[in-house]
């Protein structure tokens, strides 16, 4: 529906593009001034969704506070040709020297095409999609949130009474599966009796079904609920209303659950954004591919809420130290939930191992299926 919202920038653009026609060539030639950088950030939803977009918006705010950096933002940009127009107007009208396209579907063909059209502007996309074949002024950045979900799992495993944890997930793709698996491995490491029940809703944003899934998990006996959906607001709020504990995802949801919040897996895009801005204002070159986890301060956990038990806090704090030291989460022997061995004894997969990006199974201890 958002395609039909009246969009100030698009409107301005269509009004101004005619008059700009002649000067366009000049504008695109302009190089970024050393100490003056305009950064455009594009969101697929609203900035204050308690989720994915908010995580970026929080970082955008921190970025705007850096001297010499100006931030322009646009929300509710669908993953269609609309994003091309937005990028165009950010470059042409706002003089953006760096653009962050934060939604998965912006990448191809929209961002790739824009990067070809404006070779002097840097484009960065928040998913690990960039390859050598793509333009050199484009790139990817990504945070390994599964490390923070592992910490969530440890805290949840020691905060549950029923030993049943619930996970409301959107789609069974590898980034979601690795979060579910890390959460489960964390929980079972500290509490071998813990099991995780997963419900897939089938889409990134389905408030009614997410609420139904949360209720179904609670009815099945789960007393800690976490999720991987775009906006965890519905899940966390419903869990709190039913009096069970919850772990967050993407951004901080702590204030939604004053009684039951344990901790949450959060991105810290701020680190990446500031690093980029710093490099560009100093005249350096941006890396095409940037990814990291706890060790690089790209992900973090929400401060503990009232739902976290003292043992949970102690164990989770210890695990954070391990994560910063790049201790692997996926260690053999490990079976999937159909009993098949997926990591043989004696081997392990370190953080950032490409193996983690290819995960297509649920580990032992998860009730659920990816088909």
């Amino acid at each position, binding site marked *: 529906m958002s395609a039909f919202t*009246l969009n100030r920038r698009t409107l301005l653009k269509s009004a101004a593009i005619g008059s700009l026609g002649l000067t366009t060539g000049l504008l695109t030639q302009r190089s970024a001034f050393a100490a003056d950088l305009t950064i455009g950030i594009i969101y697929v939803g609203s900035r*204050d969704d308690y989720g994915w977009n908010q995580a970026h918006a929080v970082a955008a705010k921190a970025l705007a506070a850096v001297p010499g950096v100006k931030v322009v933002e646009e929300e509710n940009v669908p993953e269609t040709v609309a994003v091309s127009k937005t990028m165009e107007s950010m470059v042409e009208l706002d003089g953006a020297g760096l653009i962050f396209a934060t939604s998965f579907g912006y990448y191809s063909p929209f961002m790739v095409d824009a990067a070809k059209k404006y070779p002097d502007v840097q484009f960065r996309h928040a998913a690990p999609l960039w390859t050598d074949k793509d333009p050199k002024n484009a790139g990817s950045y990504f945070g390994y949130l599964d490390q923070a979900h592992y910490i969530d799992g440890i805290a949840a495993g020691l905060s549950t009474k029923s030993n049943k944890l619930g996970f409301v997930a959107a789609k069974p793709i590898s980034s979601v599966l690795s979060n579910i698996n890390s959460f489960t491995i964390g929980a079972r490491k500290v509490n071998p009796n813990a099991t995780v*029940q997963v419900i897939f*809703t089938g889409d990134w944003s389905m*408030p009614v*079904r997410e609420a139904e899934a949360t209720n179904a998990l609670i009815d099945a006996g789960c007393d800690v609920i976490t999720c991987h959906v775009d906006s965890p607001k519905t899940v966390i709020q419903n869990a709190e209303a039913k009096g069970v504990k919850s772990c967050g995802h993407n951004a901080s949801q702590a204030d939604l659950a004053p009684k039951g919040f344990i901790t949450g897996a959060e991105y810290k895009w701020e680190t990446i954004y500031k690093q980029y801005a710093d490099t560009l204002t100093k005249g350096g070159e941006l890396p095409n591919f940037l990814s990291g986890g706890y060790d690089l301060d790209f992900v973090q956990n929400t401060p503990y809420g009232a739902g976290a038990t003292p043992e949970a806090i102690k164990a989770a704090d210890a695990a954070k130290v391990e994560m910063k030291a790049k201790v692997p989460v996926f260690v053999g022997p490990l079976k999937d939930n159909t009993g098949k061995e997926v990591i043989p004894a004696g081997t392990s997969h370190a953080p950032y191992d490409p193996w983690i990006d290819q995960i297509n199974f649920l580990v032992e201890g998860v*009730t659920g*299926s990816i088909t």
Partner: protein
Amino acid sequence: MSGTDIGFWGVPLAMFAGAIRVSTPFLFVSLGECLTEKSGRINLGLEGTLVFGAMSGYAVSYLTGSPWLGVLAAGISGMFFGAIHGYICKLPKVNDIAIGIAMMLFGTGLAFFFGKPFIQPQAPHLPSINLGGWSDYPQIQSALEINPLFLVGAVLAVAMWWAFKNTRWGLIIRMTGDSAPAALAMGYSVDLVRFLATTVGGFFAGVGGAFLSLYYPGAWSEGLSSGQGLMAVALVIFSRWNPLLCFGAALLFGAAGAIGPALQSVGITQGYYFFNAAPYLLTLFIMIASVSPKRSLKGAPGELSITK
């Protein structure tokens, strides 16, 4: 097995609970649409009205601290949308379906525009009535936490059914819907009757929206309605323009929506895409079943532009 583990009984229970929790917006929108269509007009814009009602209800509840004022505000804003539709449609050579689609886009767009500042704050929710105190099972207790709006909707359905049959007003609306010339001959203004029916229908749809944002799932966000307003229109046809059947159909749709998550929660995890699609499949089957050439749309108001 712990005392609260109810195993596979969870599925019918979840469907029952889902029927009650999820059906209310369907119920209100379909009752509103039923009223409008009975008068001989189709308002497809109720999806927009629902979304705008959700936004305005949440906003007013947040600003005044009273969720019931929010419900009222949602209803009144819905009335405005209904009134706009009703007014435009009485102009000559205007197609009510096209206006409905325009109003749908207008309503959602306007709701997103004004709704920006209300995504983050938390508004007070509507209270619920707990009817499950007799049971020791927390699942049954939570299933029987019933929102007063659901009960209001149920009473409204019965009242409308009765009123269509037994009151002068009901007769006028039905007559306008079945034959405009007859209504004119009796000295009633067809345009006025349809205008009022669309306006009141908009009120109901707005209240349905308030239920979404103020009770279940209970927050205003731009992805709040996943087509409930449109499905409710299909539901009216399914229930043959009978308010009582609208109530039943709304329950059925609510239950269908709960199947997907409920089956996964008891461990039937294969094929959840199929089960999640249940409400939409149901809509499709209903459409196919209701266009059978042998059974013409019984009970369809004669003046409706789809049946004319």
